């Protein structure tokens, strides 16, 4: 096994699935000769040629629409949107068509496609370049929404996503692309969709998050560990459908829950998790559920980015508040 970064793991998954299955094709802006602006598709065009690795014009609506068309005609397209914030023209195709085809055709057309996009903070740019809009997609019945936080999961989840019979929105936390390297198995393997991972076990409080927030939560957990608070950290990994079981089991044990996300607070995925835990675990709860989130604003520029996105300090504060309730 070799140590790989998340971007290398994603690249490897694409190489191996394209080798493994000739119906897998890749399309998007600058995915060919340039290897993608973050280098996720590096080397694919040399190995698989222009007929399977397509540099498209700047046309998100057609990128997604064409992927749907290929998917209903025997291919497994993996479309790249350069940044999640540039997806909105393609969002029309996702919402109006990709998510509905199976239902509309009463099970006759499934859409085995993946839309990959980098999301969230990490490049100190603003607005569309840094936003975290997983909730938009999580609100669409018919979609699967996946967000890895480690190189190993990135590979396993991408392979599962490509093999998934329905449309998958696969979001990549760009701040973790090169954050760390870890052992990634050489072979093709699958990380199950819909299953959260408990990345740190603890008895006193449950922290739930995903993607770019996992290292922040881990740091906060280490911090409060020194104070004698034993925090459990859950990496959701799939946003839609999310792993209710793992969360509720954990809250049954700890009685306390803090949810962390980069996205704006209002109507975020955190609200849905809180609602479910409220429905299922009311009598287990020892304190109100806390959310540590981005503010309800447009992602601001550079320095202000640090104010907007949750850091471990803010998570620690929420843990204290919950513990002291």
């Amino acid at each position, binding site marked *: 096994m070799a140590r790989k970064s998340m971007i290398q793991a994603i690249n490897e998954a694409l190489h191996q699935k394209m080798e493994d299955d000739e119906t897998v094709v890749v399309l998007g*802006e*600058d995915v060919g*000769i*340039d290897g993608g*602006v973050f280098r996720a598709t590096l080397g694919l065009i040399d190995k698989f040629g222009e007929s399977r690795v397509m*540099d*498209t*014009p*700047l*046309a*998100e*609506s*057609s990128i997604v629409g064409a992927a749907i068309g290929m998917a209903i005609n025997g291919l497994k397209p993996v479309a790249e949107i350069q940044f999640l*914030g*540039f997806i*909105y*023209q393609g969002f029309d195709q996702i919402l109006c068509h990709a998510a509905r085809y199976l239902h509309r055709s009463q099970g006759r057309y499934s859409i085995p496609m993946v839309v990959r996009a980098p999301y969230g903070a990490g*490049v*100190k*740019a*603003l*607005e*569309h*370049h840094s936003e975290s809009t997983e909730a938009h997609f999580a609100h669409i019945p018919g979609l699967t929404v996946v967000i890895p936080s480690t190189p190993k999961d990135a590979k396993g989840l991408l392979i599962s996503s490509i093999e998934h019979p329905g449309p998958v929105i696969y979001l990549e936390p760009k701040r973790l692309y090169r954050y760390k390297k870890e052992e990634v198995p050489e072979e093709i393997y699958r990380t199950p969709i819909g299953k959260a991972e408990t990345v740190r076990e603890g008895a006193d409080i449950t922290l739930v998050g995903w993607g770019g927030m996992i290292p922040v939560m881990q740091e906060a957990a280490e911090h409060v560990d020194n104070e004698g608070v034993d925090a459990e950290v859950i990496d959701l990994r799939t946003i839609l459908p999310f792993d209710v079981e793992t969360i509720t089991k954990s809250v049954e044990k700890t009685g306390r829950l803090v949810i962390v996300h980069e996205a704006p607070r209002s109507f975020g995925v955190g609200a849905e998790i809180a609602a479910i835990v409220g429905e299922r675990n009311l009598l287990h709860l020892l304190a109100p559920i806390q959310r540590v989130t981005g*503010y*309800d*604003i447009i992602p*601001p*520029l*550079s*320095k*202000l980015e640090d*104010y907007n996105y949750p850091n471990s300090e803010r998570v620690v504060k929420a843990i204290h508040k919950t513990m002291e309730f």
Partner: protein
Amino acid sequence: MYEKDFLKQLFHKIYTIRIFETECIKLYRQGLIRGYFHPYVGEEATAVGVCSALAEDDYIISTHRGHGHCIARGAQIDRMVAELLGKKTGYCSGLGGSMHIADVQAGNLGANGIVGGGIPIGVGAALGISIRKEKKVVAIFFSDGAANNGVFAESLNLAAIWNLPAIFLLENNHYAVSTPIEQSSRNQNLYERATGYGVHALAVDGNNVIEVFEQTKDARQMCIKGKGPVLIEAKTYRHGGHHVNDPGAYMPKDRLDYFKSKDPVTIAKKHLKEQGKMSESEIEKIEKEVETTMERAIDFAKESPELSFAEFNQMVMGY
């Protein structure tokens, strides 16, 4: 023949953009500017030619590669550097950065990071002009990548059926990031697309400021007479990669050399010498003046404060 003062003004603007960009690239490399920075180096004559043909109360709408448009339209470079540095004294209090400078007083309707995003908005502004029966135009800047986006077709058609006073300024720099137009368009004369919508369209040498100026002037006249819209394809080229950190390795050297040999700065200087009869030393004086203004702008920006956490909080709590 053109007045010496006019030619001087063109050169001054073009050189200001060049110096602004090259100096800000240095600031970027020093880590003082964060995020993405798309230089306009090599394309200066287009913005300057267009904006010099506009009237004071006309409008422009800009793009992610918008510094040149702002400067050509009369923005103060000190406030622009401040914006790029994320300072409170910037045009958008440092919240917009490189890609979102809006200068209301100069009739600059704003830039944004969505490629093609400004095209229909510009059409809407032109519709406002038309409804109020004003004698103004909107110059809508966008590049070849945006011309491949659906929004271009929709906007062109709307402007055409409503005879809007809009000048579609297609800055064809031959690339959308790494994708060359040979690969994204079967017909590389992009202006011919407009003809299909019944829109008057033409191509100009985007590196020659006088040519751009003349064609824009005519287009403006057509628009004012109710014969708009017009599409102008300005053929030009970036002198480097898509953004500061893109080495542009995919750009063929001979093409790059060809366009560098047609540098907008050199061409504007030539106009100034040949038609304006200006001496080398007089030109050097202009250059020095521009460089000094830029130095001051950088000092101003560096010394300016950032938004504080309290101010950020206030923004979070509501405008």
